[in-house]
């Protein structure tokens, strides 16, 4: 992030904390779609989970805005970190709730419909992504969500393409294992 971007984000943050509602609205609009896409990807496309995580993420952002330091990273990366933690928490809560529901209705199992299978697949994807270390999740996000090439990822991270290929390979393998382990 350039020095100008840092200065701009610090100015916006200070304006929002000082009570400038218009500054907040512009900042919110500028990042909403991108954040929503990221959260939807992290939640495997589950719409109800995505909405919950999206809403909770923005509320946490507002609550912790004073601790955002533009010198340590961009605003979007900061809110993605919050979204990642929020998604993990929401997924754990959803899993606990699902387990309780299953145990109560064990005798009432019915044949799995296509919709149910799709939901379960999305939950497995979300759980596998939540189980990954941050650097694996970041490189998979750049590759599959942001549609970046290996060279672009390498340039953004300051690594060589070979190192990124290796990292991608290990991240894919970790994802496969996590996906297989997820019930």
């Amino acid at each position: 992030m350039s020095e100008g971007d840092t200065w701009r984000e610090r100015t916006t943050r200070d304006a929002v904390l000082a009570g400038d509602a218009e500054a907040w609205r512009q900042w919110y609009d500028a990042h909403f779609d991108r954040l929503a896409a990221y959260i939807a990807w992290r939640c495997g496309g589950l719409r109800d989970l995505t909405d919950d995580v999206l809403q909770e993420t923005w509320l946490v952002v507002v609550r912790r805005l004073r601790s955002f330091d533009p010198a340590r990273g961009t605003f979007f990366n900061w809110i993605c970190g919050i979204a990642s933690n929020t998604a993990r928490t929401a997924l754990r809560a959803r899993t606990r709730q699902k387990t309780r529901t299953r145990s109560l209705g064990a005798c009432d199992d019915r044949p799995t419909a296509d919709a149910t299978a799709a939901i379960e697949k999305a939950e497995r994807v979300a759980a596998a992504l939540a189980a990954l270390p941050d650097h694996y999740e970041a490189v998979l996000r750049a590759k599959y969500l942001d549609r970046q090439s290996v060279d672009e990822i390498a340039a953004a991270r300051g690594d060589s393409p070979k190192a990124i290929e290796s990292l991608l390979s290990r991240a894919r393998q970790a994802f496969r294992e996590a996906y297989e382990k997820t019930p």
Partner: protein
Amino acid sequence: MTDPPNEPDDLSELLSPPHPAESPGLRAAILRRTQRRLAFTRWALRAAQAAGIAAIFAVGVVVGVWQTPRERETVLVPTLVPQREVVTVPVPVLVPAPGPSTQPASPTVARTAKSLELDAEQADDVATAAKLYRQAGDAYLDGEQDYANAARCYRLFLVRGGAPALSPEPSDSWLLTSLKNAAFKETIHATSNNG
């Protein structure tokens, strides 16, 4: 270029971005909630600052009230000093003292003013009683700063001692000198009225 951007692999199906399907009204609803939250945070911050200032002010008031009585006590002490200076203005009246020279005051260190006064009351001899009343007056004045009893004993000394007792002596205290002056003036005034 080792890896084209959109080249599909075995994970593309699982990790490709889902179709965007935003819930209607969610964007505006979240914006409203965040704006309310920001406003509340600002209000809470200002309230906390105001409460802090009020608490500091209250502590200052409490400390001030707590310290005030001690300051009053210390102020009262110097007000006694001017009274003593006002009373001790001597009026020099030179009257030759006939008769025997003044005797040095006997040491009464070990005896209290009350015991001296009691001895004076019980003394058979008038001269001895006068002498003891004077010693009692000195003891009241110097030892206890009891001006009322000292003045009372001095007056009894002047009554018992008669005219010779009115003559000023170097060993007289300021109170005795003042009482002698007053008694002398009364005597002069009574003589002039009778004459």
